């Protein structure tokens, strides 16, 4: 318990400077490292023919994002297919089969990192670098770029300019991703993560047998895997393996790497919205905003997170803590089936977990990886207890608890809009959010955006359990089989990428359906969300009145949590009842 508390407190402290830095990058403000990065970016802009000052409207921005990602997919697919060439391939890996290549490339471009292959036998070092590591950088940067553009839309300084996609992509990559990765990567190597281009090592043990030990540029992949909330491992068993995650310190480095950016995104949002308010105040010549619940200058948390950012951060934090507690409790209870077999369960349910992480850090990692949509695992989720496994499943279904690479924030804003709409109906006022009226067009888009996610999960799950192609993948008997299917599509649609790894998913059926779920889960949401931002931008700010629902308060954060849970219950409860809940009841009966 104490270590979980400390782990969270440390996160709350280190996220502050990172949020500040990210905010400066997002608004193009000065940072200490500008002299170096301005030159690097300048060279890239010149080669690419990019004019960073040329703004785009939301349609151009979305088009540039999708188009650039399409180019990346094309190049990546090509490399996977021809990876058997002798370049950076000391272990003699063969080329990848077409449907598996399709699934893999969509998976990494959409920042899902669902893996239907095993890194040890499926990818050459060339593919690990030019496809996997490359995609991990740019898919994360693309996501943050979309998020920054979305916030610019909401913070609305101009009527249609959401920024330049190429400039955002480059700036986020060079100023955040690469420098953080170099430092973090070195820390991981220090802790014992290999980083070399050697072939796998075969050793003769002291018993005279042999052992193969994996080598390769593992640390480079490992750090961006977490920093970009990507999640796809170098090796089949991901961050459970001592090669990817050898010590408790490497575990914490990886944990914080994946938590930092999504947390920082919320801070960036809060600060950018505050800037807009201040600008509006100055323009109106007012000295104070009407009826603020807390004075901005005096409240420390408001100054750090921005008032609007604070309530969003709080709502996300509450859901996270609730999930973590349930997961930790469920895993601590152990497995009654093993207790019946006479195995002492006082250590908790240790099947699929590493001794060095134990129950606490495993529950922490599990909840974090699915909340921040990373998908890396330090224990096997398929072997979690039913309720312990329901938490990661649920958090991917919600897809709003911080979320990866900015999209979690965008999704949460969808729920915030829904919440002000519902509250608006109750008090009989036109709903407003961030000083803009929420009207028919925004509500339609919001509803569409919120409904896509459960539709992808439930429709594909239904398809899988109704067809022989889908049923063949299920490897655990009983209710857990349904959980395996739900988990796969929830992970795909939420662009998470963790898996109930028992699922035999490298088949045409699973490769293609999961690929489609990932594709639509990513791009439909991003385009719709940018459309909402574009639509809100065009509106005039309404001045606050006594009837305005304040969205920067504790009560709004709690309303938001309830809206998220109620919506999830309405959509997913039947499926959860048939999967993990039924399994729990039979196991403990």
């Amino acid at each position, binding site marked *: 318990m104490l*270590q979980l508390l400390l782990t969270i407190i440390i996160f709350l402290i280190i996220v502050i400077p990172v949020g500040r830095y990210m905010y400066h990058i997002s608004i193009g403000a000065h940072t200490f490292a500008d002299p170096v990065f301005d030159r690097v970016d300048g060279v890239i802009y010149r080669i*690419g*023919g990019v004019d960073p000052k040329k703004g785009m409207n939301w349609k151009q921005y979305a*088009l*540039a994002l999708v188009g*650039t990602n399409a*180019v990346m997919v094309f*190049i990546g697919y090509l490399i996977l297919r021809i990876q058997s060439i002798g370049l950076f391939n000391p272990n003699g890996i063969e080329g990848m089969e077409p449907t598996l290549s399709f699934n893999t490339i969509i998976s990494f471009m959409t920042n899902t990192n669902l893996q239907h292959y095993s890194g*040890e*036998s499926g990818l050459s070092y060339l593919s690990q*670098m*030019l*496809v996997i590591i*490359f995609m991990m950088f*740019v898919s994360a940067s693309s996501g943050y770029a979309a998020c920054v553009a979305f916030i610019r839309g909401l913070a609305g300084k101009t009527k249609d300019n959401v920024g330049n996609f*190429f400039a955002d*992509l*480059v700036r986020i990559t060079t100023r955040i991703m*690469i420098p953080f990765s*170099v430092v973090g*990567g070195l820390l991981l*190597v220090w*802790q014992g993560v*290999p*980083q*070399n281009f050697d072939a796998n090592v075969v*050793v003769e*043990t*002291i018993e*005279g*047998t042999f*052992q193969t030990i994996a080598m390769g*540029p593992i*640390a*480079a992949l490992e750090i961006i895997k977490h920093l970009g909330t990507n999640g796809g491992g170098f090796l089949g*068993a991901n961050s*459970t393996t*001592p*090669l990817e995650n*050898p*010590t*408790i310190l490497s575990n914490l480095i990886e944990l914080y790497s994946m938590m930092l950016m999504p947390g920082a995104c919320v801070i960036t949002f809060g600060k950018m919205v505050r800037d807009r308010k201040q600008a509006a105040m100055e323009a109106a010549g007012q000295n104070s905003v009407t009826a603020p619940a807390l004075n901005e200058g005096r409240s420390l948390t408001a100054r750090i997170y921005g008032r609007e950012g604070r309530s969003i951060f709080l709502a996300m934090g509450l859901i996270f803590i609730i999930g973590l507690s349930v997961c930790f409790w469920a895993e601590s209870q152990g*497995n009654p089936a093993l207790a019946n*077999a*006479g*195995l*002492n369960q*006082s*250590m908790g349910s240790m099947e*699929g977990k*590493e*001794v060095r992480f134990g129950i606490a*850090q495993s529950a922490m990692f599990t909840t974090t990886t699915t909340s921040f949509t990373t998908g890396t*695992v330090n224990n*096997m989720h398929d*072997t979690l*207890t039913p309720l312990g496994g329901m938490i990661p499943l649920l958090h991917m279904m919600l897809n709003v608890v911080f979320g990866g690479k900015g999209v979690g924030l965008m999704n949460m804003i969808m729920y915030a809009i829904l919440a002000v709409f519902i509250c608006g109906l109750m008090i009989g006022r036109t709903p407003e959010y961030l000083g803009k009226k929420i009207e028919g067009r925004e509500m339609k888009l919001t509803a569409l955006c919120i409904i896509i996610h459960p539709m992808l999960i439930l429709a594909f799950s239904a398809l899988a359990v109704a067809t022989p192609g889908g049923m063949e993948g299920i490897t*655990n008997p009983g209710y*857990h089989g349904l959980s395996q299917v739900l988990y796969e599509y929830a992970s795909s649609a939420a662009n998470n990428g963790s898996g*109930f790894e028992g699922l035999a998913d490298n088949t045409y059926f699973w490769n293609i359906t999961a690929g489609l779920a990932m594709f639509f889960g990513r791009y439909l949401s991003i385009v719709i969300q940018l459309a909402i931002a574009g639509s809100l931008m065009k509106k005039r700010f309404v001045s606050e009145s006594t009837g305005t629902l304040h969205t920067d308060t504790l009560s709004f954060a709690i309303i938001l949590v309830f809206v998220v849970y109620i919506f999830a219950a309405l959509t997913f409860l039947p499926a959860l009842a048939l999967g993990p809940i039924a399994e729990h009841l039979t196991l403990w009966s």
Partner: protein
Amino acid sequence: MNNTKSGLLHNIRQAVLVTLVLLLLCGFLFPVVLSGLSAVIFPHQATGSLIEVDGKTVGAEYVGQEFTEPYFMKGRPSAYHYNTYYEDAEGNQFYNDGSEFAGLSSGSNNYAASNPALVERVEADIEAFLAANPNVTREEIPADLMTASGSGLDPHISPASAEIQIPAIAEASGLSEDILRQIVADNTTDKMFGVFGEVTVNVLGVNLDIAREMGLIGEVSE
């Protein structure tokens, strides 16, 4: 019309060129530079923290191994037998239990908590363990020793799992229990700052020390 067309072409050009530059930067330069830096600053870790005995590589500090001799400490069950295998005269490769070596792998059986196969495997392992350690009762066996890790490569067991193996190892190796306890203590890592993580015993480290104490091997160097 012409304008939008050239605009589109310009956009495609930007997309392709920016992609190629980033491909070079993130996909090639970053891992190569990181490898260079690691090789200079942390050469031992960068090459996999390999352990040498008498000039020969016998394992890696952070990767568990499967042990079968009665005088060695046993680790946790592994779905892939820690990638440990032997070769017959024709060069065919087998795991210690005689099944065919699957090639370098990692992972677990992925048995759900409710899967009867899990109970079966654990019961079989408990029986085998009790047979090898006759002075231990079923209730004393810690859970980690009978459950598979997620990676199948877990180098550690809990201190309790090390302690209950000591009497049987003492008998098989001829070393005193005190020496063995000292060896276990030498290979035990505490929680970080006394708070984070768990107390762990490195099984390979213990067995290297046992082998050296028994005179089977010479000096260990890392």
